[in-house]
């Protein structure tokens, strides 16, 4: 293979890396007042990556760098959505970070490196590439959480995130090494073939699988490996929380599906059992604990735990349909979570974080439009039609029932009923209670506009969910399980 055929599929990653370095240096020459230039450069980089990703798209699955890297429809779709999510995150957080003095070049470059990590995770076809992407992402995120140096909470969150994240990486690596020992390969396809051939030591494989699944569970933040999630979500500045809570979920979906489906599909009856336990425990603990929260960011953290559990339901039901619904769930979740955190940032102002539930009291009287958008987002998270959150839950439940686990669908449904309560409480606070503060809300900004698009998107996708569903299903179908 000549150099170009190798480089082409990874064009977007290369461009991203180059631009991140260029912006890092260019930013040194820009004064704080001209930071908007850096911001525009970052947005342009994301746009450029999107164009390259679309431009280098080829039908079918293309492998590069000795099968370490894969470019398929799923990776292209997920990458495009990742750029979109990161770009939205930047728009939402610009004003928020500016008034806090955090709107720096480092923040934006770290966001680009995090994006690069996600892109590598999405396109990895090899344990080492997967690990590389994961670490690029994680290290950028640790640094971003710690960016607010003078905040004790943020520093504590960064510390917890780092230590637990390192532990998870260790678990994952340990598991990978066992799989390597058993199969003699690090490439996902070869691992799968080796397991299928029956030559690999079954005990060693299952043992390694346990570690790998634990590591994945840590990164996804599902019970019982969820301890870091609430603290990090709560402690980090909201812009960072938004980044952690949005795009990486797409990468995490790709990560889980590459490892479990492409690499370890022959062990499906082993890992699907583990996922059932993880999913039920996450939905139960996430939904029940969220009720007791008074801080919205913590509440959303527990809600993430529950949502990730729900997403795993799609994975464990096995079969290509299930993976497609899981991806759809992840995409929808990212959209909703961006909106919810965006709302917190929009309501925050200098020296004030609108992150407790009481800050949402009487929002309908302060700004009916924002209250309506938040209502859409909350009902969507609760899975109430006509919002898109319903179809996410619906399609996952459908694949669970198709796989023959009707009881699991009933359990999931009952647990999401508990979840509905705390989302409903936000709506209650906004509409039924009197406001505590009458501070004006800056509704003329670009982030308010984006929030309107985001909130209405949740409704419109709910009225016409077919296209996004098909995109997810088709891209999974054309990408996974080909060998």
């Amino acid at each position: 293979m000549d150099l170009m055929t190798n480089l082409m599929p990874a064009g977007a990653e290369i461009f991203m890396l180059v631009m991140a370095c260029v912006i890092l240096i260019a930013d040194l020459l820009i004064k704080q007042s001209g930071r908007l230039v850096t911001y525009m450069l970052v947005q342009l980089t994301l746009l450029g990556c999107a164009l390259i990703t679309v431009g280098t798209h080829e039908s079918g699955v293309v492998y590069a760098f000795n099968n370490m890297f894969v470019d398929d429809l799923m990776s292209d779709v997920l990458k495009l959505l990742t750029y979109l999510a990161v770009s939205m995150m930047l728009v939402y957080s610009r004003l928020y970070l500016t008034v806090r003095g955090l709107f720096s070049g480092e923040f934006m470059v770290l966001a680009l490196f995090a994006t690069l990590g996600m892109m590598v995770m999405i396109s990895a076809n090899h344990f080492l590439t997967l690990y590389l992407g994961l670490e690029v992402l994680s290290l950028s995120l640790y640094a971003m959480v710690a960016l607010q140096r003078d905040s004790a909470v943020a520093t504590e969150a960064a510390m917890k995130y780092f230590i637990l994240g390192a532990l998870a990486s260790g678990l994952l690596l340990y598991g990978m090494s066992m799989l390597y020992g058993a199969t003699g390969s690090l490439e996902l396809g070869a691992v799968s073939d080796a397991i299928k051939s029956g030559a690999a030591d079954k005990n060693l494989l299952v043992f390694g699988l346990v570690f790998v699944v634990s590591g994945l569970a840590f990164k996804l933040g599902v019970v019982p490996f969820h301890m870091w999630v609430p603290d990090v979500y709560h402690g980090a500045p909201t812009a960072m929380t938004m980044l952690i809570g949005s795009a990486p979920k797409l990468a995490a979906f790709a990560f889980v599906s590459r490892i479990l489906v492409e690499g370890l599909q022959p062990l499906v009856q082993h890992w699907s059992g583990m996922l059932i336990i993880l999913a039920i425990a996450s939905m139960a603990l996430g939904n029940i604990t969220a009720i007791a929260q008074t801080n919205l960011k913590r509440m959303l953290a527990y809600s993430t735990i529950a949502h990730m559990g729900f997403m795993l339901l799609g994975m464990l039901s096995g079969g290509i349909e299930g993976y497609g619904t899981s991806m759809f769930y992840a995409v929808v979740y990212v959209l909703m979570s961006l909106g919810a955190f965006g709302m917190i940032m929009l309501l925050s102002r200098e020296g004030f974080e609108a992150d407790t539930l009481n800050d949402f009291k009487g929002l309908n009287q302060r700004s009916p439009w924002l209250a309506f958008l938040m209502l859409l987002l909350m009902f969507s998270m609760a899975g109430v039609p006509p919002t898109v959150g319903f179809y996410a839950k619906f399609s996952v439940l459908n694949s669970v029932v198709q796989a023959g686990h009707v009881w699991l669908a009933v359990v999931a449904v009952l647990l999401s009923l508990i979840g509905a309560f705390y989302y409903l409480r936000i709506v209650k606070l906004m509409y039924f209670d009197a406001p505590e503060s009458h501070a004006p809300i800056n509704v003329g900004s670009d982030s308010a506009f984006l929030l309107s698009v985001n909130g209405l998107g949740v409704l419109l996708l709910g009225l016409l969910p077919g296209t996004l569903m098909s995109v997810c299903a088709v891209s999974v179908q054309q990408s996974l399980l080909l060998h």
Partner: protein
Amino acid sequence: MIFGLPIISVAIWLPIIFGILILATGGDKNAPLARILALVGSVLGFLVTIPLYAGFVRDTSEMQFVELHDWIARFNIHYHLGVDGISVLFVLLTAFFTPLVVLAGWQVIEKRVAQYMASFLIMSGVMIGVFTALDSILFYVFWETMLIPMFLIIGVWGGPNRVYAAVKFFLYTLLGSLLMLVALIYLFNQSGGSFAILDFHKVALPMTAQILIFIAFFFAFAVKVPMFPVHTWLPDAHVEAPTGGSVVLAAIMLKVGAYGFLRFSMPITPDASHQLAGAMIALSLIAVVYIGLVALMQTDMKKLVAYSSISHMGFVTLGFFIFNAYGMEGALLQMISHGFVAGALFLCIGVLYDRMHSRNIADYGGVANTMPIFAAFFMLFAMANVGLPGTSGFVGEFMVVLGAVKVNFWYAFAAATTLIFGAAYTLWMYKRVIFGAVANSHVAELTDLTLREKMIFSVLAIMVLGMGLYPLPFSEIMHVSVNDLLVHVARSKLPL
């Protein structure tokens, strides 16, 4: 299709579009505009449903005015609408009540008028969607969406304990719906990949599956009806809701649950329906008798009418599960009549509440002296609630009792006690509120009905009397569909 217009879609979306327009009028300074838009939208919304009745072909049980478009291709979900003899009257009933509710809230609602009016219009469109959806997921979407405006109506414009009532209402109904969703998905997989309700009717199912599905549907529909013992949300919701909310709740939303039994539970799981009919009849009779007695004890007028609604809805479910034409047609007529009567009674209580800000029976007495016209209307609706011959309340109850006698004399006997209890609690309340000496200075200052209120009550009085004296226009339209449903339900769907 009439004049090339898909009538059902227009009936659904016209009020919703008006609702959005009303929201766009913004704050309370534009309240007069919001009110007028709401009235125009709701009246137009009613007018467009009239062709459904006029153009309805009486001698077929097929779905009519059908609209079928692809919606979500991956799951074979369609935008599939249509009406048959069972659903068509409820579409009209829904559209009929919206202008009345708008008028009832004309002056009383002073804060956030646009949001109030918009909620009712959007809810009206969505409820028509529930009655006309022929695709189960479309049905489910409408079914759940219906909760959101009602939740806001109770919670924003309701009484002192409104938050508790709103959340209770929402969670109760959501519990039932979610189980139904699992049942629908299961049926989708059994029917070979279709979500069409009419396809579900044909799926053969073993007894265990039928019973489980029946129970899942039961949770969804029984909560809405509401049947004993899952009725406890209703008195709270009714008491706390503003007048308009109570009217829609009683007149339409309760009917949605009963409609679900006819459209889903009975035809999809006929064997389970027969198997569990005894339990259903028992629960219905408990509702009729026990809840009737509970109503007797109430000191709050709205609570009293709320319990009376539960008791009357017990009649409806009784009529369904005795599986004969008298019972089922009687139950359907009872549903429509109860819509008029309960709606009217809540409006009556609203009239008093607007003037006195009390729903307590003990605060009243001698209202007839100050509000004679009101007292006359109230009398008519109270008598209809009792089931006096000549009013709409009589027709349905009589037919259900007649149907019950054919099955078991004691069912009919227990059901017929409602004629006594119903008379007792309704007339006793009427006596304490309306008759007697003027109880206090507040009552002495009451003013009689305004022109707007007279108009609302006149329309309702015409319906109540008209339906009581000449019920044929209501019953003939449902004959064929009801008979067809009974034939379908009598056939076993167990796999051979």
